[in-house]
């Protein structure tokens, strides 16, 4: 089984960064007061503390990839054809592979490891993804070669600060301390946190990712066209001045 579903951490465990991973990507940790953190890999830019982060934008070259050989019930690996995007080793470790087409019934599996494709090439380069130990495809009807899969990285791999716009991928949380570029650390997803705020908030009301300020949250006004669609990421505990840090109860996870 590996690591437990939830690590029961102590206060202070959430700070700092590690050059080498100590836990599986996306590992959940809960502190005694209920705050939840996910173990994250920072992207290629040094992180900042107490700002809102998001996943890397899914690359189009990893979506709708054709499979080479049919997938049978007992298969433990998926062989695909990558036609336009390089695939680093194990970039989909702890990520997901899913069947996209209606006739394939929407199966989704978590990935244990994947092979390298040094560079994408027209015509396709073969690669393989291995499913988690003990998991077989289990498909009732074999998935035909040529049908397509989507390859999805773990949401906490290569996180980036939410840009100065609507979020462009899944919101991943708020690191409570600096995580160096390509290092590992914890990203808070639930409970009381400090986060940069944009504009005026209302105590006890919900907050959303800011549509204009990088790494910030803003008031979620459900009557505000478009920006409300960013959706809730927490609830306001304390009204802080614009561009300062506010207290938020995160509800991302």
């Amino acid at each position: 089984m590996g690591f437990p579903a939830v690590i029961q951490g102590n206060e202070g465990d959430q700070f700092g960064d590690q050059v080498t991973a100590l836990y599986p990507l996306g590992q959940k940790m809960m502190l005694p007061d209920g705050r939840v953190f996910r173990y994250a890999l920072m992207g290629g830019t040094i992180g900042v503390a107490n700002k809102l982060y998001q996943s890397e934008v899914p690359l189009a070259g990893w979506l709708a990839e054709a499979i080479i050989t049919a997938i049978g019930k007992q298969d433990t690996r998926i062989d695909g054809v990558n036609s336009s995007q390089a695939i680093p080793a194990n970039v989909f470790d702890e990520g997901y592979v899913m069947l996209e087409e209606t006739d394939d019934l929407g199966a989704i599996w978590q990935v244990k490891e994947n092979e390298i494709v040094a560079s994408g090439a027209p015509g396709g380069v073969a690669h393989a993804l291995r499913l988690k130990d003990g998991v077989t495809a289990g498909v009732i009807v074999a998935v035909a070669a040529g049908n397509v899969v989507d390859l999805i990285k773990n949401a906490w791999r290569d996180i980036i600060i939410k840009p100065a716009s609507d979020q462009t991928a899944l919101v991943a949380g708020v690191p409570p301390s600096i995580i160096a570029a390509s290092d590992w650390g914890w990203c808070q997803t639930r409970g009381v946190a400090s986060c940069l705020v944009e504009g005026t908030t209302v105590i006890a009301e919900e907050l959303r990712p800011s549509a204009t300020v990088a790494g910030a949250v803003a008031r979620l006004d459900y009557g505000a066209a478009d920006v409300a669609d960013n959706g809730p990421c927490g609830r306001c505990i304390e009204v802080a001045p614009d561009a300062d840090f506010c207290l938020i109860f995160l509800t991302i996870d």
Partner: protein
Amino acid sequence: MGIQAAPYHTHSNQRFPLGQVMELPDGRIYRYAENGAVALAAAKLCQTMALGANFDTLAIQAARAVGTTTIPFTTSGSTVAENQFADGTVVVEDVALNLGEIYPVKSNTSAADPATCTLTLHDGVTVLNALTTTGKVTVRVNPWKQVIVVPTVAPSQMVVGVPQVIVGISAYGWLQTHGVCNVVVDATVTAWVIGQGVRPSEDDAGGAAFLDFDEAAQADKGLIGFAIIAGTDLDFAPIFLRIE
């Protein structure tokens, strides 16, 4: 905690209490569910069985003192099968008479209509405040009992999760309620937006549509998760499910 393969297993006999929580190491959460009379399709949103209003605001048939372990009520409009409400709940409804207590149900007797149905509370649970025959109760089955795919137009009960595999008629299996999950895309009106919310579809049974908070009526279906990719209409695409 569950093993990676567990969400893909179904059972012809019940192995866990309905609603049992299972969490995988990556934070995906599942609930143990009983399917209804139609096989469940994989990767489609499911809801609690339709109950109607015949189990709301029912008369307490006999007074109950503090510390008792059973609550009898009078059926109204529907018969009750033995243990239909097992692992469900009973809510004391009257504001003037009680404090809104909610009790977990261990078992119940069968009852004709109208007749007395007696609920037995879970082990160790007793009535906290005396009940009188002027009081009313509302009974509910477990939310994961005899689930069905969310019908077209709108959910008629609470949305309770997404199965990873086909669950046969009256079989048992796991419905995902949290974390990365695959679901049918409804992009009939608006395409999904990566990172933004999705809600139950009004066009496709068991599907999920973009949650546009300006969209009259449809936005009221509420958030069930966030899109990970934009997806293709009527195909499957991953979302970060947030039912619980």
